[in-house]
């Protein structure tokens, strides 16, 4: 197993408006791998990324990056460390300074991370070339480029400092599908060449499924399941993951349509936060916050009802849960046709 690059444990963040956006989330990213975070709006996936990068300060939890305690770094060291964790944001139109030529935007990032003046010019040129933009475009302004080209520039800017981890926050969501495919292929090529690790955040399951080694499924600020991408898609255990996967349009004939809406994150349900929409919830789901329990190697899920049914030998099964079940079908979900 490759070395652990980023280990974040028990991260929590409550916003001043009372919303607990991230609730005891742990994420591990190994060198050179791609970890995807999926979930719907308000599930805390972007906030988690911001906590990992210390763009927001967590209320609780630890982040170790490359062996050192990331949260204890002072300003100077933090700034230096940020050269090794870079961000590709969602909207390149707003993330690139409209009044800087794109070459200058990339150069700015290099200068901020201590690159020598004489190295910056050639580096900008080679990075643009690497992402498929004619280096002559370095003198253009963002408004002169298309969305796909701008996202390539944002990627060039992020990768210019030779980071070990790049956080892609909905980095391809705003692109047309034909251009999105180009950018995904480009990110894959760059990873192959440089060994960079990606934290890939998206609401688009098909993209995450295609692009990630491991996937973290979040719901209302919590991790409900984590597994390798292939395992998760073959055998989702948490009923939310299952419903989410079956919601990908055009994919399945036996779709699970959840009832109701996402509860307000300011006032989440007790116990398991998903129980209000869960087709297999039982009475005790309201009482106990489910822990992430082992389903298999490298596969955990926070659903006692399911994990119990999946693996009868599991020792965490709450005694009496099955017996007191009010559901007629505790292990399975009734699918709509």
């Amino acid at each position, binding site marked *: 197993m490759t070395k652990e690059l980023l280990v974040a444990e028990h991260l929590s963040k409550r916003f001043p408006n009372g919303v607990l956006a991230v609730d005891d989330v742990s994420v591990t990213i190994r060198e050179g791998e791609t970890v995807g975070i999926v979930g719907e709006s308000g599930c805390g996936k972007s906030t988690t990324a911001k906590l990992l990068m210390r763009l927001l300060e967590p209320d609780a939890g630890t982040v170790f990056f490359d062996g050192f305690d990331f949260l204890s770094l002072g300003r100077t060291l933090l700034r230096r460390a940020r050269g090794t964790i870079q961000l590709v944001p969602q909207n390149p139109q707003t993330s690139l300074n409209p009044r800087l030529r794109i070459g200058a935007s990339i150069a700015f990032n290099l200068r901020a991370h201590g690159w020598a003046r004489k190295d910056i010019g050639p580096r900008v040129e080679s990075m643009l070339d690497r992402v498929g933009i004619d280096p002559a475009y370095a003198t253009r302004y963002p408004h002169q480029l298309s969305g796909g*080209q701008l996202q390539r520039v944002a990627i060039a800017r992020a990768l210019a400092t030779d980071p070990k981890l790049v956080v892609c926050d909905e980095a391809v969501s705003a692109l*047309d*599908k034909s251009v999105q*495919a180009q950018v995904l292929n480009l990110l*894959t090529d760059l990873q192959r060449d440089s060994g960079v690790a990606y934290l890939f955040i998206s609401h688009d399951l*098909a993209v995450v499924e295609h692009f990630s080694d491991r996937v973290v499924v979040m719901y209302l600020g919590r991790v409900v399941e984590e597994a390798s991408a292939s395992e998760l898609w073959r055998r989702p255990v948490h009923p939310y993951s299952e419903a989410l996967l079956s919601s990908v*349009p055009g994919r399945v004939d036996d779709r699970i349509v959840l009832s109701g809406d996402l509860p307000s994150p300011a006032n989440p349900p007790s116990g398991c936060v998903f129980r209000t929409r869960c087709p297999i919830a039982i009475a005790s789901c309201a009482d106990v916050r489910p822990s992430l329990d082992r389903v298999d190697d490298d596969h955990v899920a926070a659903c006692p009802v399911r994990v119990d049914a999946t693996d009868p030998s599991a020792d965490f099964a709450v005694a009496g849960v099955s017996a007191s079940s009010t559901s007629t079908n505790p292990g399975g979900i009734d699918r709509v046709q």
Partner: protein
Amino acid sequence: MTVTTEMRVTAPEQAVAPAALEVEGVSVTFPTKSREIDAVRDVSFGIAAGKTLVLLGESGSGKSVTSRAIMRLYGRSARITGAVQLAGRSLFDLDERAMRKLRGAEIAMVPQDPTAALDPLRRVGAQIVEVLRTHDIEKSRSGAKARALDLLASVGIPDPARVLRSYPHELSGGMRQRAMIAVAIACEPSVLVADEPTTALDVTVQAQVLELFAELQERMGMAMLMVTHDVGVARDIADDVAVMYAGRIVEFGTANDVLGSPRHPYTMGLLGAVPSHTVARGALLAIPGRPPAAGEPLPAGCAFSPRCPHAVSECRDEVPALLQVATDRASACPVVNGGWDRWDHGDEGAARQAAT
């Protein structure tokens, strides 16, 4: 006989039942100070009652413009030619007053962004009541209110009385879109136009709303025109699919045919670009380049030719006509359908030959 005429006969049963909506050779041009922008060129299709046609395309393809032009939402800002028949009436020949009467009553629209479409300062109930009374469905205020309650319940809103009293901001995105759908179906229109109705929604809510559309269509038998960029959504809901690129329909046929065995390189590229776990990472069939942005000058000849792996020199000289290439199928690509010499060079005989 032109192929666009043939295209309208898309299925045997439709040959008997007249289409609820017929769009014939619609072109939309926006005059600007510097030049004229051709947003939609010569678009034709028909939708039978109870059927769904999906206009599939990327941004700038003209799919939304087509749907809005059909409803005559552009007023004087666009020059629109062609014809639209709605249950035997020619929409482009009606005066604005008659059109206003039809809009909402006979042909209704579900917009992409319900937040922008609902009046933020008025309660949802008042907005539904307004539609019902404007179109004389219910004359009395109390009758309209009762009907609004029924409508909200019929689109799967669990507590219609609360939603009726709510302001749009008090509802979730999914509930707002359901409320918009309730407004749209209030007068039981024969045609429902939906422009990316689920794009702003989370996937689990999108699944709910798509299911609602299918259910309403089954119950009310309306024809649906749905605009989307999402191949998956098209697969889920379409009977027929028209793929648009740079303002033109480049491929047309049943959803199974078009999305199962495409006969235009752009459709092939679009399907190959859809990521999934079955495609190796880094091996998506990306189409090089990008679609022309709305208003951008188009390449000569076939607008897709600069990005097309199959393009030959003729493709840069002439815009290929959309011709029938099999039963119920049309494509605007001569190259993958037997070659340019079989294509229509203004000769109707050649068109028929290509059709066989």
